């Protein structure tokens, strides 16, 4: 108990705990469900605590999210391995070309956006969530996901195109 010391405890409280929302949000979107996200976020916090001695300053949110992400992938690998190998069929989904009509995304449709986002492969979903919901910079995303910045950029590009395409397709399908 005395090994970690009061100082480290305070550091953990001040640096890591403010990011519990971010941890849960990432887990929720990677696992596509609140129940699983709760368990995995809890486990990730536990791991963060365990690894905390190895954290020597820097971006605590990115550090925590990296652990959350790893914990999520471990969980997915064990519980839903098929999901990780899921590849987005770009040929199939990108047939439609943006026209003025298809631009009419219904902007307040929470349900439709949720399901469109959840349809993306995890690797694309995570960069979008980190960028658009968490407001991370490319550098932070690269640190969290352990992928090079160039790949962050191209993943974002593909993820956005796929999301956009899924949304415009579904809005077309919904029309009479």
């Amino acid at each position, binding site marked *: *108990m005395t090994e970690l010391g009061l100082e480290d*405890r305070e550091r*953990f*409280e001040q640096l890591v705990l403010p990011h519990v929302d971010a941890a849960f949000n990432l887990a929720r979107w990677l696992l596509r469900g609140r129940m699983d996200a709760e368990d995995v976020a809890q486990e990730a916090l536990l791991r963060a605590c365990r690894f905390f001695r190895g954290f020597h300053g820097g971006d605590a949110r990115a550090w925590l999210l990296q652990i959350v*992400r790893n914990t999520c992938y471990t969980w997915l690998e064990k519980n839903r391995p098929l999901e990780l190998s899921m590849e987005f069929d770009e040929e199939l989904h990108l047939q439609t070309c943006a026209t003025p009509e298809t631009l009419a*995304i219904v902007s*307040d*449709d*929470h349900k439709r956006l949720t399901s469109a986002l959840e349809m993306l492969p995890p690797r694309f979903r995570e960069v979008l969530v980190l960028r658009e919901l968490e407001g991370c910079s490319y550098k932070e995303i690269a640190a969290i996901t352990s992928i090079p910045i160039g790949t962050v950029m191209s993943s974002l*590009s593909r993820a956005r195109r796929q999301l956009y395409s899924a949304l415009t397709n579904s809005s077309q399908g919904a029309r009479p």
Partner: protein
Amino acid sequence: MRCDFADSLLQGYFDGELSDRRATEFERHLRHCDHCVAELVDLDLLRDSLQLAQLYEPATASLRRKINAPLRASAPTTTASQLRLWHWLAAAAALLFIAILLGIVGPRLSTDDYQAELAGEIVDAYAHSLQPGPIDGIASNDERVVNGRLVRGAGFAVPVRDFSNEGFALKGGRIDVIEGRSVAVLVYERNGHPINVFIWRTRERDSPPRTGSRQSFQWIDWRKGRMEFCAVSDAHRADLEQLQKLIDPSA
């Protein structure tokens, strides 16, 4: 027809991640690229939709309760405001976590943070595999069976060999995830102690074995032929070193 800039610069421009010079360059490009202009409009629309839909999901009350479960009994429930109560509970939970974990975790980490964390994850994965309950994997002592399954899962050729004659019986394998990437794991048994050999592809050059211990587990790590190996076990370090020499006789 898509524009070559659409995949890279356009995203960086949209996200405000380009240097001033690159941004000015891209704006010059925008003047005569209708495609990129249209894409920017779409990106804006998409971002607006995402923002308006309020997709961000903060931690649930139930997660907070789970974190704080052991403390609830003594926590005031009616006096403090919800927010202050939560802050207090969160802080207390952190202390509790640390207190519990200190008993488990060794006091020292390697000076190499990256390696330490990597070893930590690998040891965690190993420890997890020891827990009762089903572990998704292949239980077989047939080199070809294990190899076939691992290759499909890991996406690269895994050197699978049974060393029963040398006292390291092949028990099977599985695919695990370390630092977000799939790794192949070979499971051996040595005098009743399971040994996990984690194998993944690397771009780094070959390196001789390095050893360490963590949470009372031993590990040995080396790189050979664009692959990194890390064997972990609660067996003796000498056993791991012996297995390392069997897997990589050239060392």
